[in-house]
């Protein structure tokens, strides 16, 4: 698994983006960029070369679920791994995310250990 892989972190709260970025750095992933909503994220994903997305759900302009659906509907991006990290904690949320094609789901507040575990699980499944 290539720790140089480019990761896009999407969340409308700068503090959360910063925390996720720091945690990824602790795990050895330093090639991280940020977006503050689904709209901006899609723009960056379409023009950039990202290999992983960590995204919040509740965001203005385009929320995480809608962004995920659009990623899965796009020929070039449909296989992009997406890990949801969100405060949305109803069963219907998890079901909706799973059905829309999320690779993992972390509920806030979360621990560094949880993020590491879920990332590894996704990499394992993708055979990376």
């Amino acid at each position, binding site marked *: 698994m290539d720790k140089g892989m480019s990761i896009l972190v999407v*969340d409308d*709260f700068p*503090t*959360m983006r910063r*925390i996720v970025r*720091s945690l990824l750095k*602790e795990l050895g992933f330093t090639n991280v960029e940020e977006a503050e909503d689904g709209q901006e994220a899609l723009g960056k994903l379409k023009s950039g070369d990202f290999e992983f997305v960590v995204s919040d*759900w*509740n965001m203005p302009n385009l*929320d995480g*679920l809608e962004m995920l659906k659009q990623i899965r509907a796009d020929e070039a991006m449909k296989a992009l791994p997406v890990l949801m990290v969100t*405060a*949305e*904690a*109803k*069963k*219907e*949320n*998890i*079901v*909706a995310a*799973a059905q829309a094609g999320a*690779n*993992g*789901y*972390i*509920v*806030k*507040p*979360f*621990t*560094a250990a*949880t993020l590491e575990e879920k990332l590894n699980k996704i990499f394992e499944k993708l055979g990376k």
Partner: protein
Amino acid sequence: MSGEARQVAAHEGAHGDDLVVRIGQLTRMLRESMRELGLDKEVEKAAEAIPDARARLNYVASMTEQAADRALNAVDRAQPLQNEIESRAESLDQQWQTWFENPMELDQARQLVTDTRGYLAAVPEMARETSKELLEIMMAQDFQDLTGQVIKKMMAVILEVENQLLQVLLESVPDGEERDAMKRRMESAGGATRQEAGLVNGPQINAEGEDIVSNQDQVDSLLDELGF
């Protein structure tokens, strides 16, 4: 109140109680108009929103308190480690200084060397512990995202309440200049976007409830069920 007012007037005669009767009649008229316009429901909803706002504020207060505790506890644990690293290094440094000025017997030097090696072996562990506490302090800042979401939601609720109350007020003002001025003020303040997207609720303030998943373990077991 209007019924009582009428009784009072009937018992005590018309004079000073004329005013009371008139107030009673106006009140009754206002309530009937509100009912006809469906505005009493709006006021009810506004009143119901208050406990909701209180619960949210409670959540914000307790989240921030927990975060502060977490950070301060981490500082309490890290401080002694840093102090120890500092004081032991200083003491050893002094002993080496003394030795350089006045080279001593081999046995005593051996002790100093052993102590110094012991210190060097201990530092990485203490540094790791401190790093752990720093990580803990960083993670404790996650409250800001959660409280921020709740506050945003609360502002939307308050905006809605304000709109409803203004609506009621507007309806009670007779047509004319005053009403038009109020209407303009309302419109410029911007109507609340009643975005009741069912899936976007923000952090759960009350973790009880059948359809709420309160921690990562529950999330994981649900994901397992779904084949993830």
